[in-house]
C-alpha cells in the first residue's frame, strides 16, 4: 500500500515537473498571438508603469526571494527589513515586489488555484514542519529548473526581466544608465537573475549581481553583470549542493558564462559566516551564530559594504553591451 502511494506520488511529481515549463511558454505564446512586443529590447522599453514615487537617484536594489515565497504581496518581513536597512545605508532604493517564479509575475495567491496555495500557506505557518505545504517550495523549485534550462530560460527570464523593469519604473527608477541596478537573489531567486541581468543590461543599464546562498546554474546575465558576488554561509549545505548539481559551475565547464566570468575576475565567492540556508541562524535570522555574531547583521554588513563601497557609481552611461557568446 505504502509502495503504491509512493509510486503514485512520484508519478504525480513527474507530471508536475513535465508541465512546469508550460507556464512561461504559454506566457510567451500569448504575447506572440496577441501581436505584442516580443523583441526583448522593445518589450522592456515598452514596460509601462506609472511611477508611484517621484524619480530618484541612487543604486536600485532589486530583491528576488527564495523558493519559499508565495506572492509578491507576501514578502518575508525579516528579508525586507534587512534589505531596507541596507538600502537606507547606501542611499539607495529597494524593489521587492517581483515574484521571481513566474514569467507573468503572477503570484500564487493571484491565480485560479489561489485558494489551494492559500490553504498550504496557512498550513505551513501553523505547522512549519508539515510536509504537504512543501508543495509551494517544490513548485517554485521546478521554476528554478526552468530558468536554468537554456531551452526555456530565455522566455522565462524575459518575463521576469519585464516584471523587474516595470517595478523599477513604478518605483521611480529612470533606467537611463546613471544609476546601478543591483540584482540580489536569495537561494533560488539567484537563477532568474542570470537572465534578468542580461536583458536589463541590454537597455544600457549597468547591472551588478549579489547572490545570498544562491542556488543557480548559468545564464548570460552573469556575463552581462559588471560583477557577481556569491555570499555563502559556512553551514549552508543547500547552496553547496546547488554548486554540485549545476554542471555549468564545474571546473570542466570552461565555456559556461559562469566560468568565463570567473576566469575574467568578475565573480567573487565568499563564505561570510556560519549561516545555514534557512530557518534559525540563517542569513536573515537574528539568532546568534557559533562565533557569537548575528546572521542578519553579518549579511547586512556585507551587502552594505559591497553596494556602498565597491560599485562604481561614477560610471558614464554605458552603451548596451550584448553578453559574451549570446
Amino acid at each position, binding site marked *: 500500500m505504502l509502495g503504491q502511494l509512493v509510486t503514485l506520488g512520484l508519478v504525480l511529481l*513527474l507530471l508536475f*515537473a*513535465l508541465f*512546469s*515549463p*508550460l507556464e512561461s*511558454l*504559454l506566457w*510567451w*505564446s500569448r504575447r*506572440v*498571438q496577441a501581436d505584442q512586443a516580443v523583441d526583448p529590447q522593445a518589450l522592456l522599453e515598452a514596460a509601462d508603469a506609472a511611477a508611484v514615487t517621484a524619480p530618484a537617484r541612487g543604486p536600485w536594489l532589486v530583491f528576488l526571494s527564495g523558493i519559499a515565497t508565495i506572492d509578491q504581496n507576501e514578502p518575508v518581513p525579516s528579508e525586507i527589513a534587512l534589505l531596507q536597512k541596507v538600502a537606507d545605508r547606501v542611499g539607495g532604493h529597494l524593489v521587492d515586489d517581483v515574484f521571481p517564479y513566474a514569467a507573468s509575475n503572477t503570484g500564487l495567491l493571484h491565480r485560479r488555484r489561489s485558494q489551494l496555495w492559500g490553504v498550504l500557506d496557512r498550513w505551513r505557518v501553523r505547522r512549519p514542519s508539515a510536509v504537504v505545504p512543501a508543495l509551494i517550495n517544490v513548485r517554485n523549485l*521546478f521554476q528554478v*529548473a*526552468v530558468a*536554468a*534550462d*537554456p*531551452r*526555456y530560460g530565455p522566455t522565462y527570464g524575459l518575463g521576469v526581466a519585464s516584471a523587474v523593469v516595470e517595478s523599477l519604473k513604478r518605483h521611480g527608477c529612470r533606467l537611463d544608465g546613471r544609476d546601478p541596478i543591483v540584482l540580489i537573489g536569495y537561494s533560488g531567486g539567484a537563477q532568474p537573475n542570470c537572465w534578468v541581468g542580461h536583458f536589463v543590461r541590454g537597455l544600457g543599464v549597468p547591472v551588478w549581481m549579489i547572490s545570498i546562498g544562491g542556488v543557480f*546554474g548559468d545564464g548570460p546575465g552573469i556575463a552581462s553583470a559588471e560583477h557577481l558576488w556569491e555570499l555563502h554561509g559556512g553551514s549552508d549545505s543547500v547552496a553547496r549542493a546547488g554548486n554540485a548539481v549545476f554542471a555549468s559551475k564545474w571546473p570542466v565547464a570552461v565555456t559556461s558564462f559562469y566560468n568565463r566570468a570567473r576566469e575574467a575576475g568578475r565573480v567573487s565567492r565568499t563564505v561570510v559566516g556560519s549561516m545555514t540556508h534557512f530557518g534559525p541562524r540563517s542569513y536573515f535570522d537574528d539568532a546568534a551564530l557559533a562565533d557569537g555574531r548575528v546572521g542578519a547583521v553579518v549579511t547586512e554588513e556585507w551587502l552594505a559594504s559591497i553596494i556602498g563601497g565597491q560599485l562604481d557609481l561614477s560610471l558614464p552611461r554605458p552603451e548596451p553591451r550584448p553578453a559574451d557568446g549570446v
Partner: protein
Amino acid sequence: MDFWGWLSAVFGELGVVLALGGGDGVAPPPLTTALGIALVAAVSTFAGHSFLIFLNGIRGLRALLVLAIGVVFFVLLYLAQAVVIGLIAPLATGTHLGLSEVGALSLAASAPLAFGVLEFLPHVGLFIGKVLQVWGALCLAALVGGGYHTSAWTAILLSGGAWLIMQLASRVLARPVGLAAAVLWRRVTGLEAVFTPADVLSGAPFIPVADPDVEAAARTEGP
C-alpha cells in the same frame, strides 16, 4: 496476430532491446514489431513536441501536418541509418541481412526514446537526452551484434561507423533535404517555413513560423 498480441510483442521486445539482450546481443525483431517500437518512441518524443506546436498557435490540420512530417522524418532517419548499416556491416562480418531485417534492426534501436518525453523535463531533461542518445547507441550495437552474429567490439565499431557516416551525411545532405522539405511545406500550406536543415536530420519536428508579411502576401497572391 491481433492488435493486443502485437502490442504485447512490441512492449516485450522493447524491454529486451532496452536491456541490451542481457549483454548477449539482440536478434532483430520482426519488422512489424520494430515499427511498433519506433511508434512508441515517436509518440513519446512527439508528445512533448506537440505542446510546443500548440503553444506556437499551430492548430488543426496544420498541427497534424507538422506532427506527421515530424514522424515521417523520424522514421526516415532510422531507415537511412539502416541503409548505412546494411552497406557497411556485410563488409566486416560477411553476413548479409535482408532489407526488412536491417530496417527492423535500425528501427528497434529507437527503443530508448520510449522515454523521450522525459527530455522535456526542465534542466535534468538535457542530461536525460544525452543518456538516451548513449543508450540508443548501445541498443544499436546490441542489435547489430545479434543480427550479424558478431562480437561486441565489432558491433560497437560498426554502429559507431554508421553513426559517423550519418553525421557526415547529415552535413552534406542537410541543405538539399531542408530545401526540399521547405518547398513541400510551401506547396502543402502556401506558407513559408522557418525550417533549418538541422531540424530535418535531427528528426525533430519543425515549427513553421510564418513571416507575417509573407503570410499576408501569400493570402492575397495565393500559393
